[in-house]
């Protein structure tokens, strides 16, 4: 994102903003003019009022969901990158473990959530759920990145690196150096795109698990507030919680995009400003 405001950039921000404002305006107008009851469709202005009025309750729930999401994402990054490195170092490990990672991914996580809730305390189960869905994109993208190294560069490392007839320790050392100097930076773009996907999925995982858990009390996240509001027909609060969830997703995405841009802007094609 450039700071300099070119006409093109302006229209890229102004156009969607105008559409958004028009849609909100139309919604407000429809609700007011047709006198739609709030338990069917609250007006945008009422949703904003609810966010403000219920802020103590909603902010506590937001904090819970946010904590689950970020913790799940963090663990997914640690686990995904760690496992990807392990798999890239050894074919045997790759063949024996990768299929299980795929099984974890293709199984719809909501189907596992009730089981996790039996085996674990509620917050641990919710966290595991968020971790499970965010884990695979990090793993598969990092693996793809680690493997997509220029073959000539690998040969260059062989030409100038440690002689082939060396001890196992020196061999491992040269593998680690190759990993750090060559494979890690080469994998960075793919890893970051996996991270952006994982950020969104981690939030979804947290919400799905909270809904499955469905328990009240101090550990109630935004998803629980939505279920609760539905039962109580408190539709404005349902919408307010929904708005907060959407904002969380948007902010998470923007932060991860900014991170990607900052890391790649000097060298990667994806981060370059389009030619004008």
């Amino acid at each position: 994102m450039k700071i300099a405001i070119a006409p093109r950039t302006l229209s890229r921000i102004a156009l969607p903003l105008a559409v958004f404002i028009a849609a909100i305006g139309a919604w407000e107008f429809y609700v007011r003019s047709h006198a739609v009851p709030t338990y069917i469709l609250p007006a945008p202005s009422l949703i904003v009022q609810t966010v403000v009025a219920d802020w103590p309750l909603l902010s506590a729930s937001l904090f819970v969901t946010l904590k689950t999401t970020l913790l799940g994402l963090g663990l997914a990054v640690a686990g995904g990158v760690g496992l990807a490195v392990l798999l890239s170092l050894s074919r045997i490990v790759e063949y024996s473990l990768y299929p299980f990672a795929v099984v974890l991914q293709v199984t719809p996580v909501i189907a596992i959530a009730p089981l996790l809730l039996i085996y674990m305390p509620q917050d641990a189960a919710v966290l595991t759920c968020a971790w499970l869905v965010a884990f695979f994109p990090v793993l598969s993208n990092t693996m793809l990145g680690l493997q997509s190294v220029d073959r000539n560069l690998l040969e260059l490392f062989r030409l100038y690196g440690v002689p082939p007839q060396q001890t196992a320790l020196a061999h491992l050392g040269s593998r680690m150096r190759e990993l750090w100097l060559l494979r890690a930076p080469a994998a960075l773009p793919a890893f970051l795109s996996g991270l952006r996907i994982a950020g969104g999925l981690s939030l979804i995982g947290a919400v799905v698990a909270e809904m499955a858990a469905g328990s009240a009390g101090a550990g109630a996240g935004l998803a629980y507030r939505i279920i609760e509001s539905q039962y109580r027909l408190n539709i404005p609060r349902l919408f307010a919680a929904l708005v907060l969830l959407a904002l969380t997703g948007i902010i998470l995405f923007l932060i991860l995009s900014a991170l990607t841009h900052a890391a790649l802007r000097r060298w990667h094609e994806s981060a370059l400003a389009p030619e004008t």
Partner: protein
Amino acid sequence: MTEAITPLVSLQGIGKVFANGVTALAGFDLDIRAGEFISLLGPSGCGKSTALRIIAGLTHPTQGTVTWPAASSADHRDDIGFVFQEPTLMPWANVADNVWLPLRLRGVSKSDARERIAQSLALVGLEDFAKAYPRELSGGMKMRASIARALSMRPKLLLLDEPFAALDEITRFKLNDDLLRLQRELRCTIVFVTHSIYESAYLSSRIAIMTTRPGCIAAEVEAVTPTERDPNFRASPRYAALCQEVSRLLIGSVHDKGTE
């Protein structure tokens, strides 16, 4: 130059069969003399690059031997600089860090390597672009950076695998002249793989013409020694005659193989 001089590298009876059954080289003999500029010229797919990779030790022959008669140590990798067909620079590192790479892999710290990096960049005329990233450079400049990286180890033997094939003619001519100047200054031996008759005739002191696959040396032509070369060499009758002779031999070698 007399034949009695011990060669820098000697390849005897080299054969290479790939895992997929393709025979790339068969009965390939070549002596590389110290200080010469030898071109390996042949049609694409004739095993030129494979021969170069065997000299570098990047791949091993299935038959025959590669020896360094004058060398005392068994590991020759310190003596070799390799330039690939593509610049093969690390896109995430600036030019100076790319040039540092071979030294870095040998455990030389950046501060210790600084002078060597600057020298290498000056040799190829990139001293002002040390901080630039590869994507900010033109094709010719990327290739210069790649050559600077190969020179950072001060190799005795510089191996180039069709380095200028993807460049435009003007850039290629300029880089050809720069390569000759580098050889004069550094007194290194150069093995240059190319499929261009004109490029080989312009650059080389000796041209080894290869047959189609499985490749071997079909003919060797003594070309122009550096002392004979003058700035107008490209326009001289000597150059034209050389091109003609090389082209005749090349077509002959491809034709012979085809009618066997």
